[in-house]
């Protein structure tokens, strides 16, 4: 989330990808750094080590959401 805010401060679009176990932290950091509406998408936890098939399925689901987020969807 900090990276997204850093990017936003130099006017570069960015969306944070946050697994569900880190959702509270993402909200905390966004609020703490003064950008509570910083865009982020929640992923299942864990992502690391889930193997190629599961990772591909996750990406297939994620990409449209990511593009929509970059286009301003909330």
């Amino acid at each position: 989330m900090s990276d997204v805010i850093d990017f936003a401060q130099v006017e570069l679009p960015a969306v944070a990808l946050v697994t569900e176990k880190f959702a509270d932290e993402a909200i905390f950091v966004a609020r703490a750094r003064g950008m509570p509406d910083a865009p982020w998408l929640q992923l299942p936890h864990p992502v690391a080590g889930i193997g190629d098939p599961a990772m591909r399925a996750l990406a297939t689901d994620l990409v449209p959401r990511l593009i929509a987020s970059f286009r301003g969807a909330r």
Partner: protein
Amino acid sequence: MSGPGLVLDAGSKMRSAASEEAALEDLHRLGCTDGLPVIIPTVSRVDRMVLAGGMGPDLSLGTIGPLDGSATVRSVAICAVMAGCRPDYFPVVLAAVSALCDPVLDIGEVQVTTHNAGPMIVVNGPARYDCGPFESGTGALGPGNQANASVGRAIRLCLLNIGGARPGIADMALTGQPAKFTFCLAEAEEDSPFPPLHVRLGYDAGQSVVTLLTAEAPRSLFCQVTEDVADCSDRLLRQLGEAVASRASNNGSWGIGEAAIILNPEHAQVLARAGLNLSDVAQQVSAFSMKPRRQLHGPAYPPGLDLDVLIGLAPEQLLIMVAGGGGVYSMVVNSWGGGVHQNRHVCAEVSYGASCEVPRPLR
């Protein structure tokens, strides 16, 4: 620790309570403590602490992530009072917080990582006595040393209350570790055959310096001292090489970050009697730390890497100091190694003297 927290900065609101007991419960409820009882930071206690620092109360030493709270002298003083610091210690606390705010330490990342890293504070120079006394001998990292214990705890309370590192919300360390309560010691400069840490890091011996490394809990390293100095020093160097790059640690698995070596004075003497200076020691420990990646990770993980590359710590990734009682055990402290700067160590000079309310004690 589930309370909403209290941001300590120059604009902090004053709170009131019917008694010190009620105030303590209030602070626990707000999530402002480390779970242990604290000294209630009353106005007079905080003012006396601020005075001992010799700096204005609203001066900011920097920000502490992930909250990016401003570490003003007053907010740090509040944490120092809560931790049980005597005002004499406060210049050391201020120096440590200055180091904490240095971007090279990557404290914002350290605070939120799932790794268990927390800051280890090493005190060198005359401040060990003038602003202490800080323990450097037997049990230096153990209980019963007021300056060591309370200064390390003050830093933890700053990380919680200024940096916002509530466990499970912003401090995502998977299990945490005991050294996240307090982790501070002085170097036993007088018992060492080698130059002290701060001198090797570029300071004069007469300067007082704190060195911070965000680290795991320390581990013991066994080496029996014998009369055969060559054999003994060789065994010790091999043990150190194994320990600093334990294949289970980030340092050993990836060759990142830094590790600290806390030699006990007898082990330090063995190395000195073998004709080694600290540069030699670092070179040899580094050499013994190197292992082929194949041995560390096996052939399958991570894919696509050269398995014959040697992984370990370079000499400049080793912080070597002397502390503790003499005997068969020294300590090794691994670190996280993540963050933009691999959370490298940071030093800050301790500033104290005429402006300080607390007179310098006679030596």
